[in-house]
């Protein structure tokens, strides 16, 4: 039930969310996507990321950063209120940057840990002082940290006990039923203008196929779920459904355990890399709706990436490298120096068909250079436990190769490569392959102390070069973010790169796209389904006739 109201406003939208994100407070939500994304409808942050993931002042009227990147002076825009009517003050902001330290929620805690002190000047002004200078604090932390109401949290020892999601964002969470739905209502008099959609109803639908059935049926108007590649053409042909797409930032990669022979040898890793045909992966698995991975990890279209590191397949070179290592062919496959066949297990999560398919393709591709890959699918948490035991890279890993993935925010972090490859367990907290390189360590140290933006970018480029040379891991592809929605219901959607269309900008005047109703497209709607329908109808009719016939038989 929705209807366009006057002035292009919409009274209600049904947006399916593909998993339960608990009470949707900063301390109870579960995943970065869709959890944190939806959370931002309710909670504001000082800055937000715009369409291109560039920081944009939001709650902030004016700000100033000192040269050492240790002091961030911020003055808030007036007229901001919590959903319970109290005004948002600098005090709340300061509280938001200290309170998470007492909590176990790591994402906020990590930010708060950088803060040495906060200095509240008056109602609307404060200064945040960092322990060490960090030029990325604005883009990484100030855009991220949700501002929470001090009066709600201040006496709470365990923040997860606060069930009510009370923020200052454009939407108020009015109802949450565990496992069933969320309902949001636009907050009147929001300081950036009244939201264009009065009410958002988010049913929780765990099965993606069901979500798209519902979208086809018209019972939902949009969804947090990304459209599967094979559906793009289907939806494109569908009159009532529009599709929006952009590069994806979620990275699917071949994680290599650098500590397991022969992958301890960079040549071996390089040989594997050269034997892979990433474009084929994209074409077959993603049907072209994605981009092949860059060895420098960062998406070429992203902030830090360049397309210089997208590898080309080169079987001859790969073979040469392997031969050079003394891994000679014996029959179909090669054997290593100890006479052991080059045969490895490739672990993959059993719940992710794209990754399973990728693994199968990789096995096929590596077979061509004489490497035997046995794909093993594992229940996701079991896989985690083998690749990333205890989520602690210092613990003993138990795998050789695995198809792994990092979510979109990792692509946005300037220090992503350090996390992925630094030897130090605290810094290289995502270094699942146990990559160790003194050269890289030096780069990392330089990066941390460097405050100049351009110099930092240069170091990142150097790191990417090193990645492309030593190959600690092999990024396979970045799946495009494709979103589908019913334009007749609402068309103001803004696609944030790598994330999707569920964000504040989609709903706020001045940010949302103009021109709501879209022209209906061609009506070549899936004939197959019509056929299915008639077939089943015939089946039901047949059954009815049979039963009736039997009854008659009885009567006589």
């Amino acid at each position: 039930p929705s209807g366009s109201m006057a002035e292009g406003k919409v009274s209600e939208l049904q947006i399916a969310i593909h998993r339960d994100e608990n009470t949707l407070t900063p301390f109870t939500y579960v995943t970065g996507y869709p959890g944190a994304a939806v959370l931002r409808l309710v909670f504001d942050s000082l800055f937000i990321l715009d369409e291109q993931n560039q920081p944009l002042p939001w709650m902030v009227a004016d700000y100033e950063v000192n040269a050492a990147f240790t002091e961030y002076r911020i003055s808030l825009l007036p007229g901001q209120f919590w959903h319970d009517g109290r005004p948002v003050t600098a005090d709340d902001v300061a509280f938001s940057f200290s309170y998470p330290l007492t909590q176990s929620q790591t994402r906020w805690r990590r930010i708060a840990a950088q803060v040495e002190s906060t200095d509240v000047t008056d109602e609307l002004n404060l200064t945040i002082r960092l322990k060490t200078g960090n030029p990325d604090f604005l883009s990484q932390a100030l855009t991220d940290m949700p501002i929470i109401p001090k009066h709600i949290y201040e006496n709470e020892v365990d923040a997860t006990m606060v069930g009510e999601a009370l923020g200052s964002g454009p939407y108020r969470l009015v109802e949450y039923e565990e496992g069933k739905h969320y309902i949001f209502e636009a907050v009147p008099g929001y300081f950036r203008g009244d939201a264009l959609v009065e009410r958002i109803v988010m049913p929780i639908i765990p099965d993606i196929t069901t979500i798209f059935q519902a979208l086809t049926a018209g019972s939902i108007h949009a969804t947090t779920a990304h459209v599967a590649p094979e559906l793009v053409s289907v939806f494109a042909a569908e009159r009532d459904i529009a599709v929006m797409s952009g590069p994806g930032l979620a990275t699917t990669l071949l994680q290599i355990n650098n500590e397991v022979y022969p992958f301890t040898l960079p040549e071996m890793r390089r040989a594997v890399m050269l034997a892979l045909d990433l474009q084929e992966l994209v074409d077959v698995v993603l049907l072209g709706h994605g981009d092949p991975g860059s060895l420098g990890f960062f998406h070429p279209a992203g902030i830090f990436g360049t397309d210089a590191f997208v590898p080309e397949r080169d079987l001859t070179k790969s073979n040469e490298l392997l031969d050079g290592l003394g891994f000679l062919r014996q029959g179909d496959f090669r054997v290593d120096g100890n006479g052991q066949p080059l045969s490895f297990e490739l672990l993959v999560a059993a719940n992710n068909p794209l990754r399973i398919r990728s693994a199968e393709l990789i096995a096929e591709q590596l077979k061509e250079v004489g490497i035997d890959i046995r794909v093993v699918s594992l229940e996701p948490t079991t896989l985690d436990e083998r690749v990333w035991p205890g989520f602690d890279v210092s613990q003993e890993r138990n795998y050789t190769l695995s198809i792994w993935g990092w979510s979109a925010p990792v692509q946005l972090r300037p220090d992503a490569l350090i996390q992925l490859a630094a030897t130090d367990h605290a810094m290289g907290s995502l270094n699942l392959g146990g990559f160790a390189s003194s050269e890289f360590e030096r780069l990392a140290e330089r990066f941390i102390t460097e405050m100049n933006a351009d110099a930092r970018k240069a170091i990142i480029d150097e790191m990417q070069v090193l990645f492309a040379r030593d190959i600690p891991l092999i990024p396979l592809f970045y799946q495009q973010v494709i979103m589908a929605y019913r334009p007749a219901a609402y068309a103001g959607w803004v696609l944030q790169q790598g994330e999707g269309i569920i964000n504040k900008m989609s709903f706020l005047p001045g940010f949302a796209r103009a021109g709501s109703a879209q022209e209906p497209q061609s009506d070549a709607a899936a004939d197959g389904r019509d056929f299915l329908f008639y077939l089943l109808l015939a089946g039901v009719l047949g059954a009815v006739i049979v039963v009736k016939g039997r009854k008659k038989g009885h009567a006589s």
Partner: protein
Amino acid sequence: MTCENKKKQLPLALAGAVILSIFLIMAIFAPVLAPYDPHQRVGLPFSSPSGGHLLGTNDIGQDIFSELIYGSRLSLGLAVLTALVSTGFGALLGLVAGFLGKRVESVIMRCTDFMLVLPFLPLAILLAAMLGQGFFQLVLVISVISWAGTARIVRAQVLKVKAKGYIFNLQAIGAGPWYLLRKHIFREVLPLITYHTMLSASNAVLIEASLSFLGLGNPLLKSWGSILYYAQIRNAMLTDSWLWWVIPPGLSIAFLSAGFLLIGFYLEAYANPRVERGQIDA
């Protein structure tokens, strides 16, 4: 009427046998019958049926027809093996429990109670983590969870049969429990056991598919269930491809269990000769 019945039942049993043997032949001669290696990508992903690919190709371009033929190996094997193991074990315990009664019975029954409430999903994960995710592990997992049901039902039926006068009579003239179980009780519950064998056979195939659906199975095994799983997860229902991707494996599973049922039908006539007695609609 007996004559009619017999005449009618023989072709049925034959039909069942034919269906099963077709699948069996499919399984045994898969390499000969299948046009392609089902693990090989031989066409464009998601292509429609054509001369080269009778049932089109799947999401990465493997030939669905070949997948189907090779799938019969695993599905048939899984169905038969699980059915035999779980019903065999379950029926045996059910018979013993129902007939011997007393302490044996209550111990066995508490075991079945326990099996019935044993949480299946964690168990499946645990066994998969400990034993791996191969074919035999799958057989084991599915058997472990399904024998208890058979045991309970068989036991309930045995209790009923045990109360019959002729069993009482035979006991009186010295028939021991094993003798009675073997010669009479087993025979009386044989149709029920056959049904359960058939049900567990098709159930095994379904459980395998469902495990895949939940991301707990092994979608790498080429089975009918995994073909369906990919069809489902790659949204075959929203495109045209359901016609050649979803219907054939679905029908195969259905025909397999129909085949088993028809055979069971014949067995039942053997176990209970009073076929023509007491048909109320006569």
